[in-house]
């Protein structure tokens, strides 16, 4: 954070805050004045949606935009259901009050909400997020935001009783833009100052800068080596260029009885994977097709392939991409971070950063055995830096002439008692027809 200035953060995030705060209201007002309620509601909703998509396309969590979109959708529903421009503003006020309460409650719980929003602006390292300084600084920021949001809601609620859209919009903007801008400026200034002045981080920030410079000089050579390591580790997760593999996923949560799901995976070079659901009975008939990073699910009820994102959860702790994509070398840029022993096995430690946003996880911390380059362990992170789950690669066996990891255990990062075990069973290596990987053929293969 040494090279991070308040001005830089403000310039990068200030306009986004302002856009999320007043953009939809302004679009609504213009649409309502020029055309009518329907256009106004559709315009504001489209604006919120476009903002949200823009944020995600720029690999940001887009929390502000996501909240803006949620409010816009609720407002659209209220506007359409009542046909009243006044009612359109009610959900926003209610949501503001809820957020105000949430900010204050988050302080009481010791998990300040402002800290989560701050990660949208600056990628705090995990150690920094876990520190007392982080909690202290963002607790105060959260309290300030909570108070402001509650006061703002009260003023806006009073204004509603005048039933004049012009006044409501004016008060919305007056209680929004200046205060949001001021509070955002203060929050960033206070956050940066809080870390710079803390005993905990003042020294460490200086060391971190030196480390960044040193690592930068040796980075290219280490990147080549890192990519090789990841490519070698991938081979333990893929038996051949074209094969059929039976996979059983056993998902367990706390003391509940485990659920078992069965799949038949048809895979071929070029990132082509077709997954057939074979158990339990309620899932039979479903299938999944991955062509690179494009994914479809076939549901018998829908009767056609339907586009879905890779990151969507398939079952238990398993995302679609966990089964449909096994190409870490192709999907991620690897950086070698150092060496560490996992249960006595010396390992390379690698950071894998997604090359594009179209993958299941934004970041993977990967442990690969130094000897033989077998995958050993992985930690999977979301774009916000939140640890989602951990994975352990086990049961290495010779299958069809290849040594393969035949078990992957995924454990939820927060609820350690939630886990899914992927057992890779019988493998048939054969040249699969290309049409198996055509979405229009899914109904024939289901």
């Amino acid at each position, binding site marked *: 954070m040494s090279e991070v200035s308040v001005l830089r953060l403000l310039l990068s995030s200030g306009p986004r805050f302002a856009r999320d705060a007043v953009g939809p209201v302004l679009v609504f007002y213009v649409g309502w004045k020029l055309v009518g309620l*329907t256009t106004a509601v*559709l315009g504001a909703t489209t604006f919120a*949606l476009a903002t*949200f*998509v823009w944020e*995600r396309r720029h690999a940001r969590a887009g929390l502000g935009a*996501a909240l803006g979109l*949620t409010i816009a*959708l609720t407002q*659209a*529903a209220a506007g*359409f*259901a*009542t*046909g009243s421009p006044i009612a359109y503003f009610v959900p926003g006020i209610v949501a503001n009050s809820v957020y105000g309460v949430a900010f204050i409650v988050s302080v009481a719980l010791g998990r300040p909400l402002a800290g989560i929003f701050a990660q949208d602006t600056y990628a705090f390292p995990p150690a920094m997020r876990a520190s007392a300084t982080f909690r202290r600084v963002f607790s105060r920021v959260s309290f300030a935001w909570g108070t402001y949001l509650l006061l703002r809601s009260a003023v806006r609620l009073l204004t509603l009783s005048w039933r004049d859209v012009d006044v409501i919009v004016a008060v919305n903007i007056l209680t929004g833009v200046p205060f949001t801008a001021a509070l955002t400026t203060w929050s960033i200034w206070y956050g940066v100052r809080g870390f710079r002045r803390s005993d905990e981080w003042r020294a460490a920030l200086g060391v971190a800068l030196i480390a960044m410079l040193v690592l930068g000089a040796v980075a290219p050579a280490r990147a080549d080596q890192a990519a090789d390591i990841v490519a070698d580790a991938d081979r333990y997760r893929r038996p051949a260029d074209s094969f059929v593999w039976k996979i059983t996923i056993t*998902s367990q*949560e706390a003391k*509940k009885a485990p*659920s*078992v799901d069965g799949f038949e995976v048809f895979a071929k070079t070029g990132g082509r994977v077709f997954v057939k659901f074979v*158990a*339990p*009975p*309620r899932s*039979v008939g479903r299938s999944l097709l991955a*062509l*690179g*990073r*494009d*994914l479809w699910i076939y549901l*018998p*009820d*829908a*009767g*056609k392939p*339907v*586009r*879905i*994102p*890779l*990151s*969507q*959860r398939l*079952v*238990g702790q398993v995302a679609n991409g966990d089964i449909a994509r096994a190409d870490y070398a192709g999907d991620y840029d690897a950086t070698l971070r150092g060496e560490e022993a996992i249960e006595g096995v010396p390992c390379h430690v690698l950071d894998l950063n997604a090359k*594009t*946003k*179209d*993958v299941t996880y934004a970041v993977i911390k990967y442990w690969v055995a130094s000897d033989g380059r077998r995958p050993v362990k992985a930690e999977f992170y*979301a774009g916000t830096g939140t640890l*989602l789950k951990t994975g352990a690669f086990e049961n290495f066996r010779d299958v069809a002439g290849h040594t393969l990891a035949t078990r992957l255990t995924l454990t939820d990062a927060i609820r350690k008692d*939630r886990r899914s075990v992927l057992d890779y069973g019988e493998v048939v290596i054969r040249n699969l027809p*290309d*049409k198996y990987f*055509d*979405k*229009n*053929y899914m*109904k*024939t293969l289901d």
Partner: protein
Amino acid sequence: MRRVVIAVALLLGLAASAGADETDRPAWATALRLRGRLAEEFAYRLHDPGDVYDAVFDATDRYPANVERDQKTDISLREALLAVGHGDFDARIGRQQIVWGEAISVFVTDVVNPKDFREFVLPDFSELRIPIWALDASYRLAEGLSLEAVWTPDTMSNRLPKQGAEFQFARPRFRFRNPVVRLPDDQDEFSLERSEGGVRLSVLQRGWDLSLIYYDQADKTPVFFARRVSQPAGPDIVVIEPRHPRLHIVGATLGKSVEPVVVRAEAALSIGKRYETTDPLDPDGVVRRDTLDWLVGVDYTFFERVDTALQLSQKVLMGSATNLTRPGVAAPVTTSVALRVTTGFFDNTLTPTLLFVVGVNRGDFRLSPRIDYLLSQAVTLSLGADLFEGPRLTLYGQFDRNDRVTLTTTWRF
């Protein structure tokens, strides 16, 4: 709430879940659902009769006899087909559902199968589609490029609710001063002469999923033509005759994943579409209005837990909507917005879903909350409601007095 449907299957399901082996399919279940491959490129499939029996007609006598006859029992094969293939060519011959389109829960380009609207659009879409006997052939021209052709002599039309049924469609009352004779709908269900068919060209390029369609069919919903017949003595007789005018449907679909958002769009222009009119000066009581249906939708999962789908759709008439009588055709441009929100708790054992569809023109809407509880790996309990609001002659408002609560058990085997 006027009607509470309690599925008899609840008890059966509970009993079954207690004793069922959840991993292996019981032998009798296998007998009901035959499928297999005789060779790599030769498969057969035969399964699942649809709804067999609706207990509500024995539990109450509030429905007229014609409705009971129409809806109490219904046994039909959902699927019976042979699939053959050779190289890049594949064909499916038999009774089947052929589903086109990208969007979920709408019929914009899902035009091949007739629909069963006896319970409006409330059942699952796989149940709404009526299977037809058809030939569905496809050929992969290149990687990411395929051509599909469909032909069917099974020209069955949509099944509509009878007079007095729970979800009978609202129609404005025609007040003819003359005597009226209503002719039956004698559309053949099987006709080589009036057979239907079309083609679909599908392209997948850089993650863009595009298809172009053309389909030639008879309108699946009857259009009531009126004509006057002179009588030698007495006033003219008005003869109301249901007909199924020929439609030429040209459309396109689009799907694209902009991780983590999925975008879908569909459009279909029905050329030759006709609607009844209340204009007393119209000679046959029917006007032609070519109709464009289109939609755009986005799917997004919030907080990695809450699946949300938002869809905006419009029906655009090529001409005036004055005097048109069909619910859901409120204006030259009829707009609706649909929002579906689903999440899962306890490892998706408990899955609440909320569907909200609103007709923008007149504010009629449908609100359908539902909770599915996975009782076991094979048995699901569902508690849901369908609430309608709006003016009488609107798509959802016509069922304003038909709000319902449902409790359902589904046993999949």
